[in-house]
């Protein structure tokens, strides 16, 4: 008899689940459909709703404004070369191969320095985030070193490493290590206590706690931090090359300045901007994929 009485309630529960399921599926299916149908009347409006189209239009407007300012002679062409002149300079640099040599040198330096910064920043951030005692000792040192801009490190860097790749590695490292550390530390510090406890009471082994809980739970905060670190590292490599290198985009700018090749100076700057933009966009894409589970990323 009690089993009989239990039947309807179990059935209800199942229905409840099914209804939720249908509602979920409905919501998922409805969202894109609605967006499409709303944009249907005007093709132009639909085009403008696209994020990439907007980005392209924004950039085009910027270059058009720039072209107008220098092309119409509002600003002296020597002080501000027009986008077309810069494009011509870029083309020439690309053709004679020097652009690729400088770009390759800069990328190689930022890669090495950024990798070192990731290793150090992640390791130290994990240790400090996990063990309060260690963080009490280490954090004041980090917080005191962090405000020193990489530019201020240049004299002592040259003293230690001379003029070469090592100096650039070190400066990129200095720029990138702090954002990497802060992000990792913040992520581990902010881990959900209940999730850790849940893992522990389910009998999680240390490796499982680390790879299956700590790391994936921290990535939504760590990855944006690494993206910022790479951006800072990219700025640092150019700074380093302005002073302490014989190749690289920074060196290209510096050398062109001394030869009064302003077109090449701006061409170097444009390259730096575009490459930095591309790096950030690629990392953001990776982030979105890795952190797809995090609701904040979804919205």
């Amino acid at each position, binding site marked *: 008899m*009690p*089993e009989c*009485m*239990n039947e309807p*309630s*179990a059935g*209800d*529960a*199942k229905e*409840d*689940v099914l209804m*939720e*399921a249908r509602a*979920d599926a409905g919501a998922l299916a409805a969202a894109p459909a609605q967006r499409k149908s709303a944009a249907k009347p005007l093709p132009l409006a639909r085009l403008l709703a696209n994020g990439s189209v907007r980005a392209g239009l924004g950039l085009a407007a910027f270059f058009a404004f720039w072209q107008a300012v220098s092309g119409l002679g509002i600003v002296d062409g020597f002080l501000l070369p027009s986008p077309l002149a810069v494009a011509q300079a870029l083309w020439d640099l690309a053709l004679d191969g020097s652009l690729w040599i400088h770009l390759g040198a800069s990328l190689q330096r930022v890669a090495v320095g950024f990798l070192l910064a990731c290793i150090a920043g992640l390791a130290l951030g994990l240790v400090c985030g996990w063990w309060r005692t260690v963080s009490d000792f280490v954090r004041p040192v980090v917080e005191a070193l962090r405000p020193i801009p990489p530019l201020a490190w240049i004299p002592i860097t040259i003293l230690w490493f001379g003029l070469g790749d090592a100096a650039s590695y070190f400066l990129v490292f200095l720029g990138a290590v702090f954002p990497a550390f802060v992000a990792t530390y913040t992520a581990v510090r902010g881990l*959900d206590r*209940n*999730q850790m*406890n*849940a*893992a*522990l*009471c*389910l*009998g*999680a*082994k240390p490796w*499982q706690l680390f790879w*299956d*809980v700590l790391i*994936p*739970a921290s*990535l939504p905060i760590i990855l944006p931090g690494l993206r910022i670190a790479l951006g800072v590292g990219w700025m640092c490599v150019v700074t380093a090359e302005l002073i302490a290198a014989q190749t690289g985009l920074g060196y290209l700018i510096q050398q062109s300045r001394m030869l009064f090749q302003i077109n090449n100076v701006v061409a170097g700057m444009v390259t730096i901007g575009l490459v930095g933009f591309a790096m950030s966009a690629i990392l953001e894409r990776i982030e979105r994929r890795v952190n797809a*589970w*995090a*609701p904040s990323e*979804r919205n």
Partner: protein
Amino acid sequence: MAATAARISPSLRAQAPQTTPDDIQIDIRNVGKVYGTKASDDPVVALDGVSLRIRRGEFISLLGPSGCGKSTLLGIIAGFQAASSGQILQDGRPIARPDASRTVVFQDYALFGWMTVQQNIEFGLKAKGMAKAERAEIARALIATVHLTGFEDKYPHQMSGGMKQRAAIARALAPDPDILLMDEPFGALDAQTRVLLQEEIARISSEAGKTVIFVTHGIDEAVFLADRVVVMSPRPGRVREEVLVPLPRPRTAEMRSDPWFVSTVNDLWETLKPEWQKGE
């Protein structure tokens, strides 16, 4: 009147379900917990001299207003924190750390958001070093038990609160624990979902034959589910009284209108009202 008679009456204690009176699984001995032991802080006594013996297979509700230390006590039983004084024995051995023989269901689910339902449930089985095929099979069976079939590959953020808690219950059952600890598991759910899940947990717990410690501040929920309701009072957290629930198992929705049930819930509310006002 009937309710008063039922309270801690020896005759009823003798017919407590399923187990013999001396099959004690958890022995809570004079446990105290004090927070803020630094000289600068005002120490807060969360628990003071709590003693409780829980039989194998028994369903215990820990009932009380906020601040009565019921969640703290559950945390100490789980091994998440240490008692300041006294000790808790599980089958005669002191509890020192979290262990897969005592799994926890949390109010906020604490599911791993980066894992699917299936992966969440398999977590405790993976910890045991179980082979993949076997893990998947056990997880599938549990998913059916909690009525989540079809949602194996969903992520927690794609599900409603009630479904998340079903997944969390399945995850806690997966390592086949001796004891299931539930910390206000239905506190964040809407009233209808809560009632459904109460009936589910009544069914699952009597099928699985686990010892359950269920922390709640819902009087009807506590009485509906438990073999024994342990009522706690705040500041300092103490056991105030115990109520044996003579309702048969499995518990069904109709029992909520049973005269004994109604009068016991009313009775408890009347006696607890001042405490609740104090706790507010």
